[in-house]
C-alpha cells in the first residue's frame, strides 16, 4: 500500500513544517476518508514510537462514551491529551470510540489551536465539507436554482468584503481565527491599523507612484498578474492547495525574483509589513527621474491591478513589495521592466488600454483582472468624493474641525493632504526622498497609519501656510 507515502507526508507536516496535524486536516489535505486519516495518524505514531524517534511527538486523542453524570447517562465526547487518556477512559462506563485526534511536536496547553487548525482547513473546503465524512445524506442536495444564486451571492459578498476590508479578508484566508480579524477591524489605528489599511494606502500610493513612475506600475501589474499563477504552481507542486503557505510562497517569490533581476533585501522577506513602506520609498526614489505624463495613464491601470492583487492575497502583496524593492536596485533596467509589464497586460487582458512599449516578457496568468478593475473603479470614485469634501472644508478654514477628522478617518484625504502639507512635509520627506512624488507618499502613510498625526499635520500645515 501507500504506507511510505503517507508516512512521509505526515512526517513532513509534523516535523519539518511543525504543523498541528489533525485527522480532519489530514483528510482534507490528502483527500482521504476521515477514518483512514485517523488510522494513518495512528500508524504514524506507532511507527515513530517503535523507532524511538517519536519521543517529541505529542498526541491528542478523541474519546467518547457514556458517562454517568448527575444520574443521567451522558454521552461524552472529549479531546484529551495522551497523558490523560487512561484517566478519562476509566471514567467512562462504556467507551464508544477512541482515535487519534491530532499529532504535533509542541505540547498543547489547550485545545484552541486544534480548533484553529480545523477551522482553517475547513474554510477552504466549505463547499465539500462532508465529502470525506462517514455519513452521506441523500437529502442534502443543493437547491438547483437557488444554488447558483447563492453562490453568486457568496462571491459577491467576498468581493465586497475584500474591497471594503482587504486586510480582514487576507487574514481570514491566511487562516487566522475570525475573532482576531474582527479585532483588527475594530482597531484600525496604530500599527495594526496601519497594516489593515495597508492595502488601501498601497493602492493610493501606487497610483501616485505610478504616475511618476511607469516602471513601478508595470512591475506591480506584472507581479499581480503573476502572483496567482505562482500560487497555483506552488500548490500544484505540493499537490494540495492547503499546503501553500506563506513560507513556501516567500521562497517561491524569492526564486522568481532571483530569476528575473537582482538582489532582494532579506529584511523584506522576513517582515513583509515593514518591507512595504521601505519598498515604496525606494520605488518612489527610482520613480523620481521618470516622466510623469506617460505614467499617469499607466497609473490607472496600475491601480486596478493593485486592487485585484489585494483581493487575492497577502502573499501576493508581499511579492509585489519585493519586486518594488528589486526595481530600485536595477535602475538601469527599469525601462526594460516597464516594457515587460505592459506587454503582459496586452497579452493577458485586452480590456485595459496598453500604454507604451510592449517588450515581451512571458507572464502567463492574468485571469482575475476584469472584475478587479470594476471594483477598483468603484472605489476610486468613492475616495475622490471624500477628498473633495475634505478640500472644501479646508478652504473654508479651521472653523469646522470635526469634519476634518471624519474625512481623515476615511483615509481618503490624500490629495488634500498633499495640497496642504506638501510644503510642510517636504522637509521630512525630503530627508528620505527628494521628489514631489515622495512627498505625497509621506502624507499618505501618515493618514493610513495614524489619524491623530494626520490631524495635527493638517492643522499645522494650515497655519504654516498662512
Amino acid at each position: 500500500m501507500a504506507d511510505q507515502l503517507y508516512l512521509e507526508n505526515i512526517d513532513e507536516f509534523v516535523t519539518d513544517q511543525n504543523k498541528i496535524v489533525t485527522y480532519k486536516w489530514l483528510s482534507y489535505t490528502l483527500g482521504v476518508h476521515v477514518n483512514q486519516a485517523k488510522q494513518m495518524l495512528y500508524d504514524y505514531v506507532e511507527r515513530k514510537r517503535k523507532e524511538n524517534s517519536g519521543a517529541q511527538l505529542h498526541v491528542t486523542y478523541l474519546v467518547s462514551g457514556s458517562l454517568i453524570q448527575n444520574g443521567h447517562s451522558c454521552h461524552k465526547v472529549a479531546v484529551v491529551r495522551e497523558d490523560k487518556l487512561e484517566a478519562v477512559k476509566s471514567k467512562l462506563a462504556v467507551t464508544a470510540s477512541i482515535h487519534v485526534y491530532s499529532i504535533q511536536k509542541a505540547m498543547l496547553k489547550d485545545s484552541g489551536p486544534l480548533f484553529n487548525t480545523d477551522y482553517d482547513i475547513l474554510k477552504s473546503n466549505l463547499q465539500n465539507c462532508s465529502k470525506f465524512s462517514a455519513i452521506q445524506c441523500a437529502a442534502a442536495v443543493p437547491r438547483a436554482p437557488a444554488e447558483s444564486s447563492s453562490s453568486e451571492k457568496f462571491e459577491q459578498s467576498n468581493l465586497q468584503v475584500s474591497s471594503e476590508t482587504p486586510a480582514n479578508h487576507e487574514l481570514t484566508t491566511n487562516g487566522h481565527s475570525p475573532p482576531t480579524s474582527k479585532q483588527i477591524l475594530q482597531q484600525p489605528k496604530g500599527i495594526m491599523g496601519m497594516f489593515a489599511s495597508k492595502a488601501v494606502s498601497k493602492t493610493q500610493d501606487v497610483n501616485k507612484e505610478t504616475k511618476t513612475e511607469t516602471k513601478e506600475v508595470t512591475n506591480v501589474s506584472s507581479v499581480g498578474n503573476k502572483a496567482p499563477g505562482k500560487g497555483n504552481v506552488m500548490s500544484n507542486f505540493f499537490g494540495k492547495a492547503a499546503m501553500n503557505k506563506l513560507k513556501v510562497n516567500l521562497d517561491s517569490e524569492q526564486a522568481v525574483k532571483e530569476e528575473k533581476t537582482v538582489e532582494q533585501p532579506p529584511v523584506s522577506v522576513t517582515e513583509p509589513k515593514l518591507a512595504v513602506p521601505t519598498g515604496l520609498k525606494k520605488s518612489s526614489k527610482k520613480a523620481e527621474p521618470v516622466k510623469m505624463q506617460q505614467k499617469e495613464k499607466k497609473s490607472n491601470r496600475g491601480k486596478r491591478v493593485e486592487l485585484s492583487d489585494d483581493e487575492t492575497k497577502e502573499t501576493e502583496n508581499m511579492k509585489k513589495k519585493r519586486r518594488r524593492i528589486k526595481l530600485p536596485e536595477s535602475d538601469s533596467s527599469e525601462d526594460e521592466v516597464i516594457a515587460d509589464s505592459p506587454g503582459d497586460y496586452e497579452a493577458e487582458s485586452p480590456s485595459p488600454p496598453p500604454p507604451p512599449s510592449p517588450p515581451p516578457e512571458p507572464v502567463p496568468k492574468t485571469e482575475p483582472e476584469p472584475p478587479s478593475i470594476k471594483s477598483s473603479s468603484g472605489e476610486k470614485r468613492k475616495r475622490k468624493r471624500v477628498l473633495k469634501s475634505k478640500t472644501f472644508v479646508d478652504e473654508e478654514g479651521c472653523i469646522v474641525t470635526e469634519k476634518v477628522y471624519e474625512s481623515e478617518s476615511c483615509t481618503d484625504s490624500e490629495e488634500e493632504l498633499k495640497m496642504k502639507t506638501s510644503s510642510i512635509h517636504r522637509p521630512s520627506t525630503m530627508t528620505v526622498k527628494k521628489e514631489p512624488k515622495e512627498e505625497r507618499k509621506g502624507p499618505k502613510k501618515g493618514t493610513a497609519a495614524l489619524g491623530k498625526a494626520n490631524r495635527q499635520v493638517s492643522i499645522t500645515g494650515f497655519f504654516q501656510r498662512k
Partner: protein
Amino acid sequence: MTRLRLRASGGSAVRTGTETRVRAEAQPVRFPNTNPNPKRSSAARDRSPGPASAGGQKAQVSDGRARESRVGRESPGRARSGGEAGGGARRDLDTSSTAMFSEQAAQRAHTLLSPPSASNATFARVPVSTYNNSSQPFRLGERSFSRQYAHIYATRLLQMRPFLVSRAQQHWGDGVQIKKLCELQPGEKCCVVGTLFKAMPLQPSILREISEEHNLLPQPPRSKYIHPDDQLVLEDELQRIKLEGSIDASKLVTGTVLAVLGSVRDSGKFLVEDHCFAELAPQKPAPTLDTDRFVLLVSGLGLGGGGGESLLGTQLLVDVVTGQLGDEGEQCSAAHVSRVILAGNLLSHNTQSRDSINKAKYLTKKTQAASVEAVKMLDEILLQLSASVPVDVMPGEFDPTNYTLPQQPLHPCMFPLATAYSTLQLVTNPYQATIDGVRFLGTSGQNVSDIFRYSSMEDHLEILEWTLRIRHISPTAPDTLGCYPFYKNDPFIFLDCPHVYFCGNTPQFGSKIFRGPEDQRVLLVAVPDFSTTQTACLVNLRSLACQPISFSGFGAEDEDLGGLGLSP
C-alpha cells in the same frame, strides 16, 4: 497520493443503519486490544516499501486482502442477526439496552487504532419517513401593532373557558356551579373561570420609573421579582376580584387562565378553596417506530461571544453529527440522527452591544456590528450541518429577528452558504413539527425564563411541565414578555399535546417523562445553553428517551476533568 485516493474511492462500502442493531451483542473491544484483526495489521506492516512505480499495483492487491478479511469478520454478525430476527428477540433488545446513543455507538469493534484499512465505512443518513412543519399558527401574516393587548387576554379566556369548565366539572363534580364574576353572590360557593393577574411590587414598571424619577435610583436587576406582598387578582370579561385563601401566589403568574372554587367574603375578596388548571390537551397516540432515530436538540451556540473555548465544542458537535468524529460505531449511530433542531440564541448576547448608539459616530464609523462575524460563522456551521443532515433553525432572544413572540424565521440572506441546501430550514421560535409521527413543540426559552423570573418555581423543567398543565405556552406573554398583539386567537394555547416538549437555553440539562390525566405521555426536555454547558440533547424518536451529549477539549485542565468527574 494518487494511490491513497485510489484506496479511498475503491474501498468504501455503503452500509445501512440496520447493521448496528444486527451487531448489538458484539462486545466492544477495548483499547489497547486495538486490533480486531491481527492478520490484517501484520499484513500491512510486513509490506516492504516498494518503489513508487510499483506502488499502484501493490495498493490494489492489499486492497483486496483487506476487504476479504473485513468480510470475514462481519459474517458471524450477519448470521446471528438472522437468528435474532427469527426468534423475535430483536425488538426487546432494542428497547431495553440500545435506546441510548452511547450504547449504540459502542456496539462496534474499534477499528481506528490500527493501520489504515482499505475500506472505510460510509453510512447513509437515516431519513425520517414523514416530516410535517405545523408551525403555521406562529407565522405572522400582516403585522399591525396598532391594537391593544386587551384582545389577546379576551380571546385567551374565550378559548380556554370550555377546557376549564369541563376540567372543573371533572374535578369538582358535574353539579358545581360555574358563574361569572358579575353573577357572584356573597357566601355562595361556586366556581369561577378567569385570568390571573399578579400585582407585584417589584415588577419593573416604566411608568413608575418615570413618575418617581426625581429621587429614585434605578431598580437593580434581579433574577426574580417575586415578593411576599404579591397579590392575586382574578379577571373575567367584565370585572376583577382579589383572591385569597388556599392559592399560592408565589407560584402562579399573570396571564394564567384557571378555575377557582370558593365564595365571595364580606370583605369583597374571593376565598379560594381549590383551583384547577386546564391540564394537558388531548394527545394523538405516539407512533410505533421499528428503528431508532434521533433528533438532536441544541440551543445557545452563542457565537460571537468572545470566548473561543466553546468553539471547539461546537465544532466537535458538528463533527459528531456529520460523521467526522469517532469510530465506526459512533458514526453509524450518528447517521441515525435524522434531524437537528437549533433552539435559539445562535448568537451571543455580546453581539447586541449598543455601543454604536451611545458612542460618537465618528468613533464607530469603521467598526462592524459584532453580529456580522458571528452570522458568518453561523453560516459556516449551518453549511456543514445542512450538507449532512436536515436542520431546523429557530431564532432566540439574541438573534437578529423580531424580538416579540412569536419570533419569525431568520432571513435566509444571512446564510448565503447554507441556504444552498434544501435541508436547511429556518423556522419560527415557538416551533412545532411532526417528525415521523412524533409531535415536537418547543421554544428558545424566553417563555420559561420569564416565568422563572415572576414565579417561585426554580427548575426550568418544572416550569415547562407547569406550562403544559395550564395549557398555555407563554402565559406571561403580553405582560412581561414581548408578544405580537393577537386578537382573533391566541396561538400559544395548546390545542393538542406534543410528544416532545422542549425549551432552549436553560442553565442545565433536564428531561423527564410527564404523564397527563388522559394518559398523555410527554417527554419534557430542558435543552441547556451550549456555550456554557457544551451539552446538547439527543431524543430517540422510537423510545422517546433523551440523552445529553456533551463535549470538551482540554483547555482548562481542571475544569475539564471536573466535568468528567475526575477531580477528587
